[in-house]
């Protein structure tokens, strides 16, 4: 129920922020009776109301239920999981940062290799071959076969 409390609080904060931004949308001469702010503000109010219900409900249940020691152990596990998930997310962010420079093939091979390693795969020749062949496979599929351009990187300007 602590999760519901946390989620309810986050949703309440979001609804307040969203409501505030919706009110900042300028008036328009072309506006209809509802206006561009109409539904967004309604959504914000509804989300806020539901968030309050969730918060009150979770507080009521939390008071009734004593937290046992297992919750502490579980919280440690959850923190460790969240840390690992953040690491995977960072690999994706790094890909976005380097791909305009290194180009699609190299960056993608790097992403495959880094993810494999991060997920517990060994650093060996097989991992390198999988990374390179995976990147080449995607390049053939997207760029050659489907003719969808991927970031070329700085290579064309250097050649």
């Amino acid at each position, binding site marked *: 129920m602590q*999760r519901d409390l*946390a*989620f309810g609080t986050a949703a309440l904060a*979001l609804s307040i922020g*969203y409501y505030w931004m*919706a009110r900042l*949308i*300028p008036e*328009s001469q*072309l*506006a*209809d*009776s*509802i*206006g*561009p702010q*109409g*539904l*967004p503000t309604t*959504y914000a109010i509804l989300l806020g109301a*539901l968030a309050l*219900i*969730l918060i009150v*409900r979770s507080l009521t*249940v939390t008071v009734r239920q004593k937290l046992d020691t297992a919750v502490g152990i579980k919280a440690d596990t959850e923190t*460790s*999981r*969240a840390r*690992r*998930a953040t*690491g*995977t*997310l960072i*690999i*994706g962010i790094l*890909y*976005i940062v380097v791909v305009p420079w290194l180009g*699609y093939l190299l960056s*993608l091979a790097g*992403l*495959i*290799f*880094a*993810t*494999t*390693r991060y*997920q*517990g*795969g060994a650093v060996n020749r097989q991992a390198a071959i*999988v990374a390179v062949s*995976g990147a080449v496979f*995607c390049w053939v*599929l*997207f760029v050659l076969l*489907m*003719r*969808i*351009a*991927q*970031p070329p990187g700085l290579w064309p300007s250097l050649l």
Partner: protein
Amino acid sequence: MIDALANIFTTPIGPAAFAGVAWGILGGALPGISPSITMALLLPFTYGMEPTIAVVLLASTYVGAEYGGSIPAILIRTPGTNAAAATVIDGYAMKEQGKAGEALGISLYSGFVGGLFGLAVLVLLTRPLSRVALAFTPTSYFALGVLGLSVIASVSGDSLIKGLMAGLLGLMIATVGTDPVTGLNRFTFGSPELLSGIPPILVMVGLFAIGELLAQSGEGGSQKAAAPSTRIRFPNLALWRRIARPQLIGSVMGTLEGIMPGGGGTVSAFLAYNEARRWSHHQEEFGKGSPEGIAAPEAANNTVACTALVPMLSLGIPSSNSSAILLSGFLMHGLIPGPMLFVRSPEVINGLYAGLLTANIAMVIVGYLIMTPCLWLVNRPKPYLMAFIYAFVVSGVYSIEASLFHVGLALGFGALGYAMRYFRVPLLPLVLGVVLGFMVESNYRRALALSSGDHLTFLSDPISAGLLGIALVVVIGSVLRHIGERKRRGPLEPGADVTA
């Protein structure tokens, strides 16, 4: 029809249908590549082709793509297309139970049944049904959107409040971009990339694919993916009988939604899933790997692949992005859809019918052939599999509009998906909100503008009143079921998965 069938053997329609289906399955299976993008990529190549062949190639691509979307939905919890989002629920649950082959077999067979049903509707009812599409006004479209949103109540898992909150989050995401009436920018923060809104497929890839990757990376441990099945399995006689009813439900939903411009495969798939659960003798299995939960949405979205052509052929109104691309194919070859097309170019219509029949058969053959390698692939060691999915997803997302900003957004939605899993908030209501938000808002405001702000317009229009009445019944039924289930089971157990 006999003329149409003769075309299969006397013209290159057969090879064109096979090629289109294979291309469509490939595009549909790639997260981020929608059926319309897959068709658009093919459009320039059809320029020099004979008109009938070009049209068959494009229509077969649509058929293949609608099916292809279910492959990643079942195997990696990532809907390849918007319409495959409902298939994720029970498809992935079956895969987790080591029944990936069975799930893919049900999906393929149901897609085939839905496709044939849709083709029959297309051939027999194109002209009469087109009148229904003409009767649709903004009021009716709004009611149609509300009907779609009413499904939120039944896909909210154990917490209706959290489901409603997720649905509202989806509706909020749908407000990003240009206002549908005034053209003002809303929530774009000065970013030109957000002016046209956030593509729903981007949200889905983020929530499902990247969110699942993040959740899996937190698990660690196992080096092997948990899917012992390496062969596709078609339903046996008992299962065949069991999924007949959801297939019929899906086909009817697909027909109704397909002939309405704006309906589309996504809404029909969710409605079909909801109705299949309502009429099922095994309601408790839904969400935990029910074969019926795959059969209904898959039959629905493959029916739509044919019935969406009804308003396009008879009135020249494209009911979806994909049928708009097909319309471009017609126009490119000097064919103007409408009643006169049936008189002036009957050979094209006959060829299209024959091509769609061949495409549905080709879907089974090509689908069967590629399934074994797909299943082999998902049984690779987990680190390699996850790395490959990550590479596939970032490439696919970039392909939508050649934008790294979109890749960043997808990663953001991945983090949101992970957080929603952590807080045990269902994902599907958010998806429904994103998909239907624009449709609901734009038509609500247009309807009110046309009626001088009179809300009674939604009840005075018979189609709108009927759809809103059905939506009310769906909501009341779902709420009563929620209350009944909670009374039976008691409060939600810690760790229960409601994220679907």
